[in-house]
């Protein structure tokens, strides 16, 4: 089962247990298990063909799992119509009816969730304001830009006030401003409204920015899960630290550092005397790295002019995970 923080008595917003899916006997997902607590933002990462979209489609009742079971918003996966009342989904590459206006589109979808005509119009108006499309409510969707379409999609997701939100590649094809707006909206609906969000994305920077936890899929299996820091640290490539010593102590400092456990190598910058780069192995805890390097040098009477530890990069961990599995 998943390893999210568990509060006794609180049912996770999403529970997935040993879910598998095959198409024509070819497995696409195998033995996927995880939990998502209410209010969390889970990033689902993985290379192309890892099964991210398939997993989302199973959880959003578009596909039936071949094995295992799941629950969303406390509703068992065997009751798909009921699940759909509590979720909002932005599929990857969703299409929009070009002959409708944004307002008409949202009003329609609100009515599909049981609102009266007046309630639906009101909800549509408010939701369009949230995504900054209020002034384009009466315009045909055919006139919307790519970014506006994505915001319209998010508006549709929100119109039913879902408990759990699924976003499949929400920043795909957007310019930086569009991407920023989408991420801000996601952050807002998570922080202010307390909604649970499952975000499938290729863009690791998005995951690093807004996800409280990530799940890495590779070849249909869970390759890693945890917080961004945990996964980065556990699977990350070597950590780097840059430090500056007095030039006359650089040689002694280098010899000391090389002897430390956890330090893979030390290199000196050719054009800057005293500047050293220390490479730690990926398992080294950042706090320990600082204590190890700075503490050891100071204990040996070697002055440390500056010390900077590079942040563990999720991209390094991601590549390490997926390449390891490929091997």
């Amino acid at each position: 089962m998943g390893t999210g923080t568990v509060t006794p008595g609180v049912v996770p917003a999403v529970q997935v247990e040993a879910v598998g899916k095959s198409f024509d006997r070819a497995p696409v997902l195998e033995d996927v298990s995880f939990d998502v607590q209410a209010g969390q933002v889970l990033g689902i990462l993985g290379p192309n063909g890892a099964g991210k979209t398939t997993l989302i489609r199973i959880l959003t009742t578009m596909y039936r799992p071949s094995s295992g079971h799941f629950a969303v918003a406390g509703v068992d996966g065997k009751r798909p119509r009921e699940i759909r009342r509590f979720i909002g989904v932005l599929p990857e590459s969703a299409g929009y009816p070009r002959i409708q206006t944004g307002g008409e589109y949202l009003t329609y979808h609100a009515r599909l969730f049981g609102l009266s005509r007046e309630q639906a119009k009101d909800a549509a108006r408010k939701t369009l304001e949230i995504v900054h499309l209020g002034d384009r409510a009466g315009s045909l969707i055919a006139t919307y830009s790519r970014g506006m379409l994505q915001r319209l999609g998010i508006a549709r997701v929100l119109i039913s006030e879902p408990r759990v939100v699924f976003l499949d590649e929400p920043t795909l094809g957007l310019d930086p401003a569009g991407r920023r707006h989408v991420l801000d909206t996601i952050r807002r609906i998570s922080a202010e409204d307390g909604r649970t969000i499952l975000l499938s994305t290729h863009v690791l920077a998005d995951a690093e920015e807004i996800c409280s936890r990530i799940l890495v899929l590779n070849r249909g299996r869970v390759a890693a899960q945890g917080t961004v820091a945990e996964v980065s640290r556990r699977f990350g490539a070597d950590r780097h630290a840059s430090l500056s010593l007095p030039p006359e102590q650089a040689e002694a400092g280098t010899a000391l550092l090389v002897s430390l456990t956890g330090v893979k190598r030390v290199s000196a910058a050719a054009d800057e005397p005293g500047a050293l780069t220390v490479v730690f192995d990926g398992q080294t805890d950042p706090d320990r790295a600082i204590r190890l390097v700075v503490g050891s040098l100071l204990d040996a009477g070697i002055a440390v002019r500056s010390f900077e530890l590079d942040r563990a990069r999720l991209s390094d961990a991601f590549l390490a995970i997926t390449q390891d599995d490929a091997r």
Partner: protein
Amino acid sequence: MTAIAAPARSPAGWSVVAGRELRDLWAGGRALTLSTVYSLFLSIVVYLLASSTNLNFLEQRESVTLTAQLAIAVGALLAMILAADAISGERERSTLEATLLSPVSRRALVLGKLVAAFSIWVAAWVIVIPYIWFLGRGVDIVWEAIACTFVVGTLLAAGLMAFAMLVSIAVDSNRASLSVSLLVLLALLAPTQLPSSAQSGWAGESLYRLNPVTAGEHYVGKLLTNGHDWTQDLDWLVSPAIAAVALLVLTAVMASSLTLTGWRER
């Protein structure tokens, strides 16, 4: 915040879908364009028929019959095309998933789309009324022609629409859906082109009776051209009625199998 507490059943789901589909169809202009082309076709036919000054009484009645039969065939065809596009077209335009993600049942979704597709048949019937009036008033069969066009056309449109919807639900390609539906309609219309000798005999007549399209058109001909009573040839409407009911029921049953990618998940 709590999610919308929709009722366990959404009885209005189909009407919401139907309302939206009807607005898209008519206010969006597609149905009006189809209706315009259809009326142009009727105008050409009726002009050719009526501009003959030597049209005798019987020939005039036959003209009314032909107009009614064409209205039924083309009107049912238009409804069929809309139904064939209803699900597979949305799949291709990537708009189906958003609708399937709502709590509306699959059956309500399909029913709403059938209602919208049926509206084009009703429009086709309304459009043919002035043509029938013009041709039929001199030979006293206006009301019979209008009424039997509606009855027979409704049966055929319902059956063909339901069939096309089944295909649309099953296949993930819109081109395949339209092609299959049109081919089936052509196959059903083909026997009307056979010589009358092929239509006689037990095999020919059985085929004619079992085929709902030819059976329906035959009934119209007997009523309008031959002046038969309404009940005299009612047995010819058995196959159109059975086809309509059976296909609609099958569509209602299979609607729950509607998925994002056809009957089989891919």
